[in-house]
């Protein structure tokens, strides 16, 4: 309603994930109420909004950790298959990073990264470990390769978790509040790794409460409330000149003032 809306950066790119009128119910509770958004190749889409507004649920629907109650999720134009075996194939195209890291505590950092290719792709352990080492270098943790998760800080664990997801060479990375469980001083190192991934052109969907990250890195920001999309647009629109009253409320509650 104020300034003209800037164009979407990835508009000329093919969509990687399309959410088409997605609904999710938990009993009577409506977690997602007809959500329609899409992520194009090479875009970083940030999902923001109050807790319990459905952001994480949408992310979990993307790789079929949750089943849909209605609507469709299309990955590269193909709906998520209902059959578990086929769903697994699609899941391999997506890397996921969890709020609580969920590293495997009985495996070293190196083996956490190598376990996917070994178990799922049948790669030899030697090859998988070599590749895992390259990925750990990428997230700056080659020196900690033989540490177990209990011997790593939260930020380090989350970077290993990112490397673990990258090991499957995904087309798209899903981040579910990747920094919410971290000490403030380690948030930066995780966001930096994510920023670098974005710069390399990785397609990313990020549920986050880090508004400055969303402002700086996202190409497209989606604001959720009560299972619905309140507003979506480029970060300049959302953070500098939001159209929706609800967006302004939410951002001012976070103390955001441009």
């Amino acid at each position, binding site marked *: 309603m104020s300034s003209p809306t800037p164009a979407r950066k990835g508009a000329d790119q093919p969509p990687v994930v399309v959410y088409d009128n997605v609904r999710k119910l938990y009993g009577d509770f409506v977690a997602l109420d007809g959500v329609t958004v899409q992520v194009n190749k090479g875009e970083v889409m940030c999902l923001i909004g109050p807790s319990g507004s459905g952001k994480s649920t949408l992310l979990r629907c993307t*790789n079929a950790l949750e089943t849909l109650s209605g609507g469709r999720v299309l990955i590269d134009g193909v709906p998520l298959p209902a059959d*578990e075996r086929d769903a*697994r194939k699609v899941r391999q195209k997506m890397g996921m990073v969890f709020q609580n890291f969920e590293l495997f505590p009985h495996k070293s950092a190196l083996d956490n990264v190598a376990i996917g290719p070994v178990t*799922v792709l049948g790669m030899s352990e030697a090859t998988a470990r070599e590749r895992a080492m390259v990925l750990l270098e990428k997230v700056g943790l080659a020196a900690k390769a033989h540490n177990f998760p209990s011997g790593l800080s939260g930020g380090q664990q989350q970077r290993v978790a990112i490397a*673990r997801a990258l090991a499957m060479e995904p087309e798209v990375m899903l981040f579910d509040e990747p920094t919410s469980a971290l000490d403030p001083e380690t948030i930066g190192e995780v966001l930096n790794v994510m920023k670098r991934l974005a710069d390399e052109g990785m397609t990313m969907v990020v549920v986050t409460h880090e508004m400055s990250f969303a402002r700086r890195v996202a190409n497209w920001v989606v604001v959720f409330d009560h299972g619905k999309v309140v507003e979506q647009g480029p970060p300049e629109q959302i953070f500098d000149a939001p159209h929706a009253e609800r967006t302004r409320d939410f951002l001012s509650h976070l103390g955001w003032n441009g």
Partner: protein
Amino acid sequence: MNLDWSIVWDHRSELLHGAMLTVLLTVLTMAVAVPAGIVLALMRLSNSKPLAFASQCFVEFFRNLPLILVVYWAFYVMPVFLHIEFSAFTTGLVALCLNVSAYNAETFRAGINSIRKGQTEAAMSVGMSRWQAMRTVVVPQAWRRVLPVLASTWVSLFKDTSLVSVIAVGELAHVALQIRSSSFRVLEMLTAMAVIYWLMGYPQAKLVDWVQKKFEVKE
């Protein structure tokens, strides 16, 4: 009162043989009841309703009957109804296996359930099937939590093997009680029996303490 401890020494070879059978029963029972417990637990946790129900029935049945009753039942009832007749030793082993498998199933189930759901989800998010996630991520972690409980079960089992003496399996309790009845040396034999059981049980209990310390879950 005149005590004659030589009776113990005179029967040392029978007692030794009995003690060996006690150990053998314990080892064989666990060798069967650990895999059986894993299978029962996985059945219970599977998506198949009939499998889960069958496992639950088995566990609730044998877990809630006194072991001595199961021993008698295996000895007297099983041959009549199921037309299965084993030696006393095998019958006793079957009864112990039924009981301990039921306990182990619950131990494994609790161990598997104690692993956060997020671990399975993380495994599935790299493309693993439910089964692969169970095998490579959940069970190896559950194992550490289960081992101390299995160790305690082991020590209970070691003592509970004495119950199969009621169907004349020649393990330590039976041998000692036989010598007692033929010699009327009640006090000597019961004392000897206690000492032998204690001397064998104590190191095992210490081993359990060590296992529990070593595998204590720190998070």
